[in-house]
């Protein structure tokens, strides 16, 4: 049976006025920082959870879709990630980065685990014709951390930069990179390790 969210949609559908905004049980406003929303989730505040979803689900879905290449798998991944968020909200600390960083990480690991376990069979089943990833790094300009990472990425030789991006954003493993770039596995592994070391040094500077 399909479940609905009964109250919101019914109230909004049936009444002539525009639907009111849900308040969280803790009374958190709509622009409360995600850190606070996570805290509220840890206390079982479902409206705060809804706010987190509204704010972050699109990003997580975009990330999952890029890695899994199937909208159904991406949706499952995001659902599982949000369940983890709900159950582990208490364990979030700022050492994990921003709440979005933490949530994106959860999503990526689930997506990666899914595609890794499914193996080559998943590729042949792919019904999504995802466009090639745009070459521009401009989207990274939207945060300070993004700008810093972008500068460090641009110092890498273009092929290593490409490897880092294909790995993180597209979910390519060493073996898949080796195939795609037509390079021996050993070279790929070595190149990536160097790239990571460079990024680490650059970001620490």
């Amino acid at each position, binding site marked *: 049976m399909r479940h609905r969210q009964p109250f919101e949609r019914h109230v909004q559908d049936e009444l002539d006025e525009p639907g009111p905004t849900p308040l969280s049980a803790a009374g958190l406003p709509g622009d409360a920082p995600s850190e606070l929303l996570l805290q509220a989730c840890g206390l079982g505040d*479902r409206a705060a959870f809804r706010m987190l979803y509204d704010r972050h689900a699109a990003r997580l879905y975009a990330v999952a879709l890029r890695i899994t290449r199937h909208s159904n798998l991406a949706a499952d991944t995001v659902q599982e990630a949000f369940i983890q968020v709900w159950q582990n909200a208490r364990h979030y600390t700022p050492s994990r980065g921003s709440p979005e960083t933490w949530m994106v990480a959860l999503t990526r690991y689930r997506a990666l685990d899914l595609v890794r376990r499914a193996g080559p069979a998943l590729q042949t089943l792919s019904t999504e014709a995802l466009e090639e990833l745009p070459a521009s790094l401009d989207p990274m300009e939207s945060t300070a951390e993004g700008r810093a990472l972008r500068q460090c990425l641009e110092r890498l030789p273009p092929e290593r930069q490409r490897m880092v991006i294909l790995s993180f954003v597209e979910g390519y493993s060493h073996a898949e990179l080796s195939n795609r770039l037509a390079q021996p596995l050993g070279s790929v592994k070595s190149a990536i390790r160097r790239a990571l070391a460079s990024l680490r040094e650059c970001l620490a500077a």
Partner: protein
Amino acid sequence: MSGSIEMEDGDQAGLYVLGAMNAEEMRAFKREAEREPSVARAIEQWEVRLAPLALLAPPAEPPEALWTQLSARVARLSGEAAPQGEVYTVPVRRAKSRRRGEAARAASSGALQLWRGVAAAALAAAAGLGIALIKHQPEQLQVSMVMPAQAGVGGWLITLHPDGQIVAVAQGALTHTLKQDFELWALPDGSDRPQPLGLLLQTNTTTLKTGKLPRGKFALLVSLEPKGGSPSGIPTGPVMFAGDVQQP
């Protein structure tokens, strides 16, 4: 870049975060992180470093069904049926009197086939139920909804507050909690379309704030629905109670 930069042990964590490992390597590394706090810490640091790469994933809109499924699962995990955190405000005026017969007429005049069929049968069963209207204060309206004993539910004392709250306090001792949910509805006089107000918990207190109660006279209905409430927007289960509320 030449090979002048030192590799660190922590760079292995970078491979993990990057997704460059295969499935077995990832699982092994994850187990190591669970054993070794320094590995877990290295993973965290790489997550923070590489996080902005997520901005490169082109925007994509998740399907609508994602939230409804997620919300239902969280509700089950929380051991509840109702998403209690979501509340709305509504202005309420006090009621003057109630006439049970009028509610029955309003209910049975519905044009919605399915609902009417269910309601008529249920109202007959509900004939023995009582509703007591108690006016405590000018601004408040209290409604007592008593359930038949065999349902194992003691009913609720429902208060409609002028600031828009509906507070339902579960009455009596439960013999067991039903696997279904009780859903509260408002049926405006002359309308055949009940408006859902929310689910009534079978224990303790339910607080509901609905967008708007109907103007003038309306009936309050309680129906027995599947867990999570009616999936269709109108009552699908038996209406256990119907009583009307009249406003000035």
